[in-house]
């Protein structure tokens, strides 16, 4: 039964990883920038969920309705004022800027909220459903998985069917050609970064009941998001969704059958192995680039 328990918790955790990684992948695809502040954007979502609950008693999942537009606007503005300025610069500059931006965020959080970890406890934080065979499914994780699925579907439809979504894809496939179609690519970058921020913050808000909330809580997710993006093929949003589930499963299985201490090592080894064996990822891009 250990297997099924790990399978289920792996998939549920993987969903959250997927959500965060899709945001990173979208930003990478459209802007060709690796966002090292992605973990801090998750941390932002965690604190927002925490304070909306503490101060206004808003359930973390309902709070998404506030957090999503807020963080989209935040990301949009950050891109316009900061990240967008280095889009044509060498990648060292871009890395320095996003790392620096992340540091500013985490240190601001440190000043504002101190380093004491916060715990968000709702009435159902530790409730779970029992399935036959002694398997338990955490309610918050199940809810977050369901919402993740809905968000993924919404993102997919947005990218596939809407005019702006198609323009985002076009920009990610060939920025220069997109400009020649009359697409305002700097606006697309802002939208991509806003959407990436929204996805990271939503992921953060949804795990706020499951993980400790502190200014550096996003760090562990940064490496995971990178691993997932590389696994799924950099810039491929659907690849990131699948990659997230894969990493969730790998972690759960290695915690179950090796030891909890080994799960990060296994993920990291996997990261290196993919880079060596399949640098374009499982869903790597065909054709150009």
């Amino acid at each position, binding site marked *: 039964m250990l297997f099924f328990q790990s399978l289920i918790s792996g998939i549920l955790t993987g969903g959250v990883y997927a959500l965060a990684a899709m945001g990173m992948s979208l930003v990478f695809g459209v802007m060709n920038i690796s966002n090292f502040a992605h973990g801090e954007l998750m941390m932002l979502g965690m604190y927002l969920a925490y304070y909306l609950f503490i101060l206004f008693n808003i359930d973390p999942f309902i709070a998404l309705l506030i957090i999503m537009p807020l963080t989209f606007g935040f990301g949009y503005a950050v891109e316009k004022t900061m990240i967008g300025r280095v889009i044509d610069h060498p990648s060292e500059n871009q890395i320095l800027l996003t790392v620096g931006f992340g540091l500013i965020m985490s240190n601001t959080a440190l000043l504002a909220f101190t380093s004491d970890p916060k715990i968000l406890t709702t009435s159902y934080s530790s409730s779970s459903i029992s399935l036959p065979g002694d398997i338990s499914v955490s309610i918050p994780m199940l809810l977050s998985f369901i919402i993740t699925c809905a968000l993924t579907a919404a993102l997919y439809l947005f990218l596939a069917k809407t*005019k702006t979504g*198609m*323009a985002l*894809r*076009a920009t990610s*496939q*060939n920025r*220069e*050609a*997109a*400009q*020649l*179609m*009359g*697409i*305002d*690519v*700097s606006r697309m970058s802002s939208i991509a970064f806003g959407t990436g921020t929204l996805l990271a913050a939503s992921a953060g808000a949804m795990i706020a009941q499951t993980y400790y909330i502190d200014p550096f809580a996003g760090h562990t997710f940064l490496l995971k998001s990178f691993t997932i993006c590389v696994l799924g093929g950099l810039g491929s949003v659907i690849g990131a969704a699948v990659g997230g589930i894969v990493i969730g499963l790998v972690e759960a299985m290695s915690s179950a059958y090796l030891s909890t201490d080994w799960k990060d090592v296994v993920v990291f080894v996997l990261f290196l192995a993919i880079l060596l064996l399949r640098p374009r990822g499982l869903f790597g*891009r*065909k*054709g*150009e680039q």
Partner: protein
Amino acid sequence: MLEICDLNAGYDDMPVLKSLSLSIVEGEVLSIVGNNGAGKSTLLKAISGLVRSTGSISFRGTRINGLKPHAIVQKGIVHVPEGRKIFPEMTVDENLTMGAFLNPKEYRRHLDMVFSLFPRLSERRKQLGGTMSGGEQQMLAIARGLMGSPKLLMLDEPSLGLSPLFTESVFSSIGEISRSGVTVLLVEQNVCQSLEASDRGYVMETGSIVLSGTGRELIENPQVKRAFLGM
């Protein structure tokens, strides 16, 4: 229709175009020929706003250099870049939809028009751009440009890498496009064929115009013959 005066442009510290001047008359097919590295593609990029320039480019009386590329497309100048640059993971249909990004209202009419120009595309509507052959990609690139309903269509080496048969059909579609009222600026390595298909031409050398004349005059010019036609 387009007046370029004393244009300078380049990349980072490297100047490419050196006080270049030329003009395009409404309704004509104009060729620009020149050796590799002469700056032909850079000139088109300067016109479409991909490369910054100093000097003046004015289109129908208004200055356009300094505008963002999407604003220039809005004015009716469409640039089909060298090397096709279609969207590889989009279908033919989606590529064409992107071409009509700024005027979706005319989508149907333009779609019928490009399908009658390139019937092969209408058989491949669901195929991914990246999986098409080079010639098909070139057709798609031109068709995608036409979807933007250009007043001035700039084609950068549309026959690059195409077999003689495909090249022939690209040139005949350029004729049709021109007859439909679009002004065409053509950059080509295929000097003889492109000058024949053009009303006028310019010869470019290291960033400046060195010769100009009607297509016929240039083909018969001894300098052109020596430099490009190996005669």
